[in-house]
């Protein structure tokens, strides 16, 4: 099943879209919270273009027969992958080229989030972190 393009409003008012399959982000995904609700997905960033910005959020796996937004902590690991040899840096998290950034499943909480903005110099700058995210060398 393809990823949804239907926006909905999070409790804090921001608009989000559920991510249920691995996804490569594009220009049109800017400005919308990418709410990951399936375990072990990889979100791949495009080649950095200045001013592109993304927010990826851990929505947790929805409880069986539960309503949208009923995800639980510790249910979803999210992997963020840069394009090629680009890297992500900021928020005291420094990666090397091609390194992944992972929201560790065991310690993840619904609402964990990473904000990224593209920079020509480095690839991606981390503008916001909620929760435990760690780099994984490749």
């Amino acid at each position, binding site marked *: 099943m393809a990823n949804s393009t239907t926006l909905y409003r999070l409790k804090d008012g921001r*608009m989000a879209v559920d991510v249920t399959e691995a996804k490569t982000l594009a220009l*049109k*995904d800017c*400005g919308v919270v990418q709410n990951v609700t399936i375990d072990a997905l990889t979100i791949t960033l495009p080649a950095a273009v*200045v*001013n592109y*910005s993304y927010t990826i959020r851990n929505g947790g796996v929805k409880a069986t027969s539960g309503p949208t937004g009923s995800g639980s902590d510790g249910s979803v690991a999210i992997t963020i992958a840069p394009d090629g040899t680009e890297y992500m840096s900021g928020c005291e998290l420094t990666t090397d080229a091609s390194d992944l950034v992972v929201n560790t499943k065991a310690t993840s909480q619904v609402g964990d989030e990473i904000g990224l903005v593209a920079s020509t110099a480095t690839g991606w700058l981390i503008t916001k972190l909620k929760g435990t995210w760690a780099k994984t060398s490749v």
Partner: protein
Amino acid sequence: MANSTTLFTLPDGRKAVDVTENKTLAITDCGVVQNVITDALTITLPATIVGYAYTIRNGGDNATSTPTRSSTDASTIVTVSPNASDMIVGMEVTGANDKDFVNTKATAQVGDELQLLGDGASATGWIVQKVKGIWAKQA
């Protein structure tokens, strides 16, 4: 009556200015929340320039004889209009030149917001940085 240039502080601490007439944004409007409090206004963006950043917020239209900022949801439709050769891109929508984005009145809530950042590129124009509420692209 011309638009106000008097800043005030929103509950979240950001500085804002009320918009009560159609407004074409300029460099001086960067960084200040444009708080639209009159129904059916159009906020027009300048030609895109790298680093220009705007936040347009639905402040709701005050009911008659009520205090300032006592506005209600679904009272104000806000239209954000790019330059003819620019587009607004993001929000899971494919951009197109000269297409407005509209905060639909029926579903609008006070606090709905659209944050835009200019990229100066002729192929795009304005990239959505953050969105609250339902904004629809002009057909």
